[in-house]
């Protein structure tokens, strides 16, 4: 199985963003900043694929796809294996974890606020029910 960790297809789709911290594509954050690289990851999220299959699905020139695959490989987002004359690429989900964690911290902060809002809302609902009982 190429897919490790708790990430799902939705993660890739959701956490596609730029993090312009460095000019180079030295980490996963920068690597997924490129829309065509995200498209490649999305296709690979469904399962491993040979290069020509990716080329056909994305409708991009093969040299371009190969270039992006090379970047993705350098940061560990994809891995490759040879099968006969074919080179088959697969997603390495674990490499997406830093991105996932980055967003999760922000999400947690808001969820804590919302949980307190839940308590406020419970009280407001009770007050409203109380008022309608009085009528």
């Amino acid at each position, binding site marked *: 199985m190429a897919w490790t960790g708790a990430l799902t297809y939705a993660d890739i789709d959701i956490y596609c963003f730029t993090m312009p911290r460095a000019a180079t594509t030295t980490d996963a954050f920068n690597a997924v900043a490129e829309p065509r690289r995200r498209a490649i990851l999305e296709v690979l999220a469904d399962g491993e694929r040979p290069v020509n299959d990716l080329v056909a699905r994305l409708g991009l020139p093969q040299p371009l796809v190969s270039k992006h695959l090379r970047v993705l490989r350098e940061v560990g987002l994809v891995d490759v294996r040879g099968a006969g004359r074919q080179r088959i690429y697969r997603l390495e989900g674990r490499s997406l974890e830093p991105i996932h964690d*980055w967003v*999760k*911290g*922000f999400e947690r*902060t*808001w*969820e*804590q606020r*919302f949980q307190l809002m839940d308590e406020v809302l419970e009280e407001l*609902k009770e007050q409203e029910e109380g008022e309608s009982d009085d009528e």
Partner: protein
Amino acid sequence: MTSSGTAVVTLPTQTQIVITRDFDAPRHLVWKAYTTPELIQRWWSGERGEVTKAEVDLRIGGTWRYMMVANGGFEVGFHGEFREIVPNERLVTTEVYDTGPGSESVDESMAPLITTTFTEVDGRTTMTQVTDCPSAEVRDMIVESGMEAGMQESMDALERVAITLA
């Protein structure tokens, strides 16, 4: 008994943050909790501290100002201006982070714009908050702030464990 949702954060473009959350309450109450100073006092700081100020001048061009003392002892403040108000439905406001004395001079036209919508189905409300940032850098900074808070909480939790073990 509350069966509420869990906040979901997505980053659909380089300059946007979208937060969605379901509440087990009709939207006029969610609106009330979201815009009434005494109620904002109770939730806005989350687990990060105590709200020390919540002022809301709920009219177009009116300002809001929230402040909290974080658990670490430092003050954090935000303010903004209401741009659009449709009671119980939609709220558009700017959000400026108060960086300390002199922060009034920051270019308010560059402030992130927050559009919050409330939709109700069967007595439950989905709140969607879209933050439009002037640049990817600002967007990343906002997301980063949550990350730091998360890490701080982990440190606090670690400290508590350490104390119980002592």
